[in-house]
């Protein structure tokens, strides 16, 4: 029998990025007693996120459900950000300034046309801009730019400000923020019941939410087979700041582009800073900022906006996104009773924050799964995948043994 050093909570949330913090806020608002634990709230993937809110320019084949969830979340952002700033008197950097997606050369324009056709198949028609129109919208664009698509309803938010505001909002709504690492998930009678912390204390709770980003798979005590399929996907990002010589206001809105087949985006902040991102690297839990990563980002960003070369390099960080096999989040009850997953948001964590917070808090309060979760069930990878053949001829298997990992 463990010593009970803390009052039992209704909900324990493991992970204090924007996902965990926003769930804590929304759940506490509903009158639930909430504990949230993270050694460094807001310092994970949140810290290295650009905060683009642009589901329509992120569309990909076979990812329509993810697009629809993103669009739903985007529609909730204005009131979400307004309420957050109202209760905390803190800024979130939320702006609804739109996204301009541009193509740099002929091949990039063909990719942009393909994107536009895909968007149309998803029921969205963005305004197609000629090169001249692109430069009317964003005069700092390089004359080489061949054309673009304007998503006028898109927005952006500053994830670092957002995390700070969410932390304050969660605490003022009554959530306890415990700055410690989870040593082990507590399981009693086949049910998740909170967590043992690294200082030896226990946080017992009726329901436990796993919102620990890429580390969600590595929580000690998770039963075998219950670890969510998340992996770290490294992203490097950098922040450019205006100088006295440049002045602020290089861009009016988010500009993203494909430059000779390589993707880059620039997100302006109200301060005049520009966030340039992001690499996407499958290198395990590595957060090294590399020369090559920054070079690639700056090369492509400068190709689109030559003027950025005059800005100050204020910051360069690498973060780890929680990637899943199909790029979509894991939302809803896990196989282990008492455990709820809110993780695996990959590239879209900041965008999906309002809809994740609302629906998870609703479930914690009422026990009712939101219909929006239908395509994001944590159990969706359990079934064998693929309509192709699953086995290979024996001749090859025999040779395999010695040489393959």
């Amino acid at each position, binding site marked *: 029998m463990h010593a009970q050093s803390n009052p039992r909570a209704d909900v324990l949330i493991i992970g204090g990025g924007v996902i965990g913090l926003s769930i804590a806020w929304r759940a506490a608002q509903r009158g639930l007693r909430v504990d949230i634990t993270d050694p460094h709230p807001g310092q994970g993937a949140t810290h290295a996120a650009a905060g683009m809110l642009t589901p329509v320019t992120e569309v*990909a*084949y076979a990812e329509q459900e993810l697009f629809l969830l993103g669009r739903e979340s985007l529609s909730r952002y204005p009131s979400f950000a307004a309420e957050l700033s109202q209760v905390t008197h803190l800024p979130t950097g939320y702006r609804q300034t739109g996204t301009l997606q541009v193509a740099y050369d002929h091949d990039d324009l063909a990719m942009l046309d393909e994107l536009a056709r895909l968007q149309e198949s998803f029921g969205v028609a963005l305004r197609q801009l000629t090169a001249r129109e692109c430069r009317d919208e964003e005069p700092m664009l390089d004359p080489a730019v061949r054309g673009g698509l304007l998503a006028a309803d898109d927005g952006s938010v500053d994830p670092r400000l957002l995390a700070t505001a969410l932390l304050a909002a969660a605490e003022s709504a009554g959530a306890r923020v415990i700055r410690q690492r989870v040593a082990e998930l507590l399981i009693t009678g086949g049910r998740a019941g909170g967590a043992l912390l690294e200082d030896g204390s226990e946080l017992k709770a009726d329901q436990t939410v796993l919102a620990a980003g890429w580390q969600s798979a590595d929580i000690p005590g998770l039963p075998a087979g219950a670890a969510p399929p998340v992996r*770290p996907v490294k992203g490097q990002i950098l922040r450019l700041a205006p100088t006295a010589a440049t002045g602020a206001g290089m861009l009016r809105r988010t500009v993203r582009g494909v430059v000779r087949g390589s993707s880059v985006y620039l997100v302006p902040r109200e301060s005049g800073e520009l966030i340039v991102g992001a690499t996407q690297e499958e*290198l*395990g839990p590595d957060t090294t900022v590399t020369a090559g990563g920054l070079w690639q980002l700056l090369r492509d960003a400068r190709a689109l906006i030559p003027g950025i070369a005059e800005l100050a390099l204020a910051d360069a960080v690498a973060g780890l996104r929680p990637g899943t096999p199909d790029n979509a989040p894991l939302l809803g009850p896990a196989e282990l009773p008492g455990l709820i997953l809110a993780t695996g948001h990959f590239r879209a964590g900041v965008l999906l924050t309002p809809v994740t917070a609302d629906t998870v808090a609703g479930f914690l309060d009422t026990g009712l799964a939101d219909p929006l979760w239908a395509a994001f069930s944590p159990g969706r990878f359990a079934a064998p995948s693929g309509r*192709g053949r699953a086995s290979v001829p024996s001749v*090859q298997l025999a*040779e395999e043994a010695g*040489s*393959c990992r």
Partner: protein
Amino acid sequence: MDDPFIIAGEAFSSRLIMGTGGAPSLDVLDRALAASGTELTTVAMRRVDPASTGSVLDLIAARGIKVLPNTAGCFTAAEAVRVARMARAALGTNWVKLEVIADEHTLLPDPVELLDAAEQLVADNFTVLPYTNDDPVLARRLEQVGCAAVMPLGAPIGSGLGIRNQHNIELIVESATVPVVLDAGIGTASDAAIAMELGCAAVLLATSVTRARDPELMAEAMRLAVASGRLAFLAGRVPRRRYARASSPPAG
């Protein structure tokens, strides 16, 4: 029909070698690999961490596919040799798809660095499968230094332009005594079939599947195209004629 693809003494029943770059998600890649029937798949060692779980390497291993590490992203022989050695240490295979690129815009092989790296790696007991230009002379030189195959491009990586110089591919096939693998440039199924009809032993492709609207379906198309191109090559095509020749002669 028993017609194994033999490379460096190992036999494969599939003549389709897959690459993994460009897939929108691991899940889509997994289904595409299954549908392709591939038994040999190449992975860029600079873009993967062999030590972490849940990566593309796990997915390939789970399918029982042999992994072929490649040196994508290397611009000098020295870099490529280093990456190949790292791959051998990490994955326990001495096979390497050798790629030494001249510049990022064309991604064309640098022939001088390539030959240099191939020579060094062969001397270090690697099974070297070099990605090369469609130059019959360079292909011959690569074979002479001991490469286990030569892998000429049909067109630049990711371009989907098909086989731009079929005559050169034919010349390479004619004189090679190691397998010729058409690597890069495939846009759609007919390109893969043509490569096989020209006498290539196998086809290596990635983009045409991974960036297709439905990668799984395109992978299946490629599997069928490679198989049917191979059968057509073995069967022998009829000579081309300027004028018609009735298939059922009117008189005996």
